[in-house]
């Protein structure tokens, strides 16, 4: 038995230790790893009717992945440009949502982290309470705000900014706002957590030595907050790239999110293997992308857990 396991059992006793270990293993293996492996397995199989399962046609194939890149066999195009475009647009949009969220949330997190007192608790509560409302309702609420005869258009037209209603939904503004809004807390709290532990004297020391506020953030606060920033960005990016409800409700008719394609494959086309392949590609590319960005900014995996 490896040392850390022995210590774990010594500390918790055999009974409690086994129970805790069992639950954790069930959680990771039973609820995460096995279903994902099953999806992975699906993604390499042809879409067959149930009677043919295990039959001669049930062989491993790369067809589902090929389809994403090259489209249907014998199709007129060289590439499956429709789905690929959706795929890359989703990634780029998720990056934009993440950056937008970071720019919006960093000042809030800094303010929350560096100020103390009762009003701060009220402020934090005001951020949290909207999340008691479920995601679908919040998305519909945004639809009402951004709709053609919605609150925003009424106000803007009343002010004379537009003559005719601006279509926020067709222009994807509603979608980005919805995605940004959906994950604000996941960006704020990791950054807040780190900044809260930043010694105020360091900011004052930098200020005392003549640093301007942008300089203080660049050299003192942001390097210190990096673990929180990367953890927030990772979560927001992963969740926006994998979001379904917000794109479904707030997306314009012409702008599909890649998750919607996956959803269509599973539900509308009843083609689980194809859907699984799309989902696996999205997952793998997102993970690789996150790892690459972490590498670029010299963030360690261990920092994210901080």
């Amino acid at each position: 038995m490896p040392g850390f396991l022995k210590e774990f059992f010594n500390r918790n006793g055999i009974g409690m230790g086994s129970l805790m270990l069992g639950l954790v293993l069930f959680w990771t293996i039973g609820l995460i790893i096995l279903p994902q492996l099953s999806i992975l397995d699906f993604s390499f199989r042809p879409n067959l009717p149930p009677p043919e399962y295990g039959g001669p046609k049930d062989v491993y194939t790369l067809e589902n992945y090929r389809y994403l890149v090259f489209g249907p066999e014998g199709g007129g195009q060289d590439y499956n440009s429709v789905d690929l475009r959706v795929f890359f647009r989703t990634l780029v949009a998720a990056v934009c949502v993440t950056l937008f969220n970071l720019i919006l949330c960093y000042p809030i997190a800094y303010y929350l982290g560096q100020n103390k007192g009762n009003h701060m608790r009220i402020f934090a509560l005001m951020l949290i309470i909207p999340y008691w409302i479920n995601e679908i309702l919040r998305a519909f609420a945004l639809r009402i705000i951004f709709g053609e005869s919605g609150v925003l258009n009424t106000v803007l037209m009343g002010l004379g900014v537009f003559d005719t209603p601006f279509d926020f939904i067709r222009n994807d503004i509603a979608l980005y706002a919805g995605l940004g809004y959906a994950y604000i807390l996941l960006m704020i709290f990791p950054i807040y957590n780190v900044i809260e532990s930043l010694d105020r004297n360091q900011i004052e020391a930098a200020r005392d030595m003549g640093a301007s506020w942008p300089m203080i953030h660049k050299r003192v606060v942001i390097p210190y907050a990096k673990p929180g920033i990367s953890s927030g960005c990772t979560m927001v990016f992963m969740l926006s790239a994998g979001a379904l409800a917000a794109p479904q409700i707030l997306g314009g008719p012409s702008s599909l999110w890649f998750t919607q394609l996956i959803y269509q494959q599973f539900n509308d086309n009843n083609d689980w293997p194809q859907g699984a392949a799309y989902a696996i590609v999205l997952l793998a590319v997102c993970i690789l992308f996150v790892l690459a960005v972490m590498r670029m900014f010299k963030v360690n995996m261990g920092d994210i857990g901080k």
Partner: protein
Amino acid sequence: MSAGVGVDLENIWIRFGDFVAVRDANVNINGGDFFSFLGPSGCGKTTILRAVSGFLEPSEGNVLIGGQNMQGFGPNKRPTALIFQNLALFPLMKVWENITFSLEIKGASSAERRKRADELLDMIALPGQGDKLPSELSGGQKQRVAIARALCAEPDVLLLDEPLSALDLKLRQHMRTELREIQQRVGITFIYITHDQGEALTMSDDIAVMKAGVIDQIADGRTIYNDPSTAFCASFVGENNVFRGKVKKVSGDHAMISTNRSGDLMARISTANQGKMKEGDDAMMFIRPEALALAPEGAQGDHFVTAQVTNEEFEGNSFNIFMEGDGGKEIKVSLPNLGQSFDSHRGQPMTLEYEVDNAVVVPAGELATE
């Protein structure tokens, strides 16, 4: 030593809501001096320092540095550098980056910063340690890096907020000497905040003793120790024995005090209070433990004190005798150990004498609680 830049505080009041943190402070600090604010925690000394460094504006009054009114100048615009109590080194920057942060702000090149860092590292006796992180240094080394970082900005005035309080006793005593040496070498004005009278006495040219937002006395260490102006100064700086009573008679700069427990005793009125004390005033008389000496048993007069011995201890360089004193406080006597024989008087009365000029009278007032 170069002339240095002086600091003047004129009628400074600092209020936080209803709370008055600093009450009408007037201080003139000479350029190139090592000046200390000494007082218990919460007395407002750090608040004064923050007003000098620009982190807060006084509610009333002016801070002048080199004769120039600093009102409206932020901390980044004043010729001061502050060393924080916890040093506040940047944990993610290397030592040399920490030290030359002020140059980085001014846009100095990396090579230039390296060179300056090496000079300063030599000065603080840490050559070649520039590439370490602060967390890899010992407490005393961090201390020196913080000093180097502050000096790198070439401030006219260096402000130190109890920077030694986190160090252990040995290192603290060593750093006292070192700080004083650095101050004399660079020749700029140091303003030092401390609650440790030992630090204040050993390092400072002048000391301001503070209590509850009020500056009680400003003088050099010897004057404060020998000629305190208030009961607080007398009891806060160094060990002191208090005798409460009333002024019985004033003759010139001496007074006869009828003490509550020890009869009529003669003492010198402290300089600041001469001419201000009159018969019948409540007074406090202070005698240092080392100013008391054994007297022949039963001797009586205006400079003899007799009391019951409650405890005795041997401290190596001295015998300490504790006797029943006034208001629940013990009278402490320190007899230097010169190899003489010493008979225990525990539980018995003992008579002590002192030289009248070594006993100081001030108006009755609040004592320092320690």
